[in-house]
């Protein structure tokens, strides 16, 4: 039997999309469908990048390790620079956030928020 995926309270408050005016939409609001949220798949590359950055900003303990040549431990601030500058590592970190978002949207839909 598949194990259940737990959505922590803070995940419900983190953005998973934007509205038409560019305001972030939380998972809770996205799942309710009460706001004018853009579908995640409709977001541009720049919007997905900014969304990833906003989510990383909201994680006070964010810290990643890497085994690359240029610096092993990536702090939240460094991660934000990498993501916003769209470096190779930054794109990877943004893709990880995208993977989280897609999973959370799917899970939230399954449980009808």
């Amino acid at each position, binding site marked *: 039997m*598949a*194990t*259940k*995926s*737990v*959505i*922590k309270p803070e*995940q419900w408050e983190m953005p998973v999309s934007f509205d038409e005016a560019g305001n972030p939409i939380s998972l809770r609001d996205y799942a309710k469908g009460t706001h004018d949220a853009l579908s995640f798949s409709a977001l541009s590359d720049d919007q997905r990048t900014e969304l990833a950055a906003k989510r990383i900003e909201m*994680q006070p*303990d964010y*810290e*990643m*390790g*890497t*085994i*690359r*040549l240029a610096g*092993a*431990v*990536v702090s939240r601030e460094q991660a934000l620079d990498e993501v916003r500058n769209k470096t*190779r*590592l930054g794109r*990877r*970190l943004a*893709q*990880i*956030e995208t*993977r*989280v978002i897609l*999973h*959370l949207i799917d899970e939230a839909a399954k449980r009808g928020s």
Partner: protein
Amino acid sequence: MAKKTAPKEQTLTIRVSVVGIDSTHERVTLAACEYREKFVYPYIARKGYAIEKCQGSLAKRIYVSPKAQQPGVAFLTGVGHGFDQTYTGQYWEPIFQVGNYSAAEVKGKIVHFLSCKTAMELGPDFVRNGCLAYFGYDEDFVFTTADQDVFFECDSEIDRAFADGLTAAQVYNRVKALFVQRAADFRAQGKQIEAATLESNLDCLRCPSSPPGPNAWGDPDAKLP
């Protein structure tokens, strides 16, 4: 007529060995090396392989190159920073670099490096030089530092599975299953970013039977003696 004399012969037995190349000069590689010391090398040794280590200040090309060419060496494994064409040792000293190593160091061997990006060019270059199978990552190997041992566990399942006598294809299947299980375990704890990061690393793992084909990373049937 002179009587024929049978040539004198002696059979030599050479122990199959594994060379571990681990750098330790900063927090990340030190943590991975410590994990490997506890959970990888003892496991490989219990399976009957001799272990030759080039760790810390010995993780340098001058020590690794002759060890890799010793008779009986079948597997090179380790943790070290990397880039597309280079696997490095202590203080980022290049150990293996495309165009700057001898084919004898990798010929007939299986290689696994916990390192960033080396599956891009170095791994395929090893295979072109006779390496049987290469396991590594084509992007940065990233992990959440708070749960680093889970990430090291998933990667080092490659070493344990080879030590268990599996083929490269079987090793990949076992490693993939562990990545998937640990990601599910993370999700059950609400650790969404940890789960996604683990899955992302699995997507970047390259080896003989991983996508995309045709294979640049060696023979899916390769296994340790």
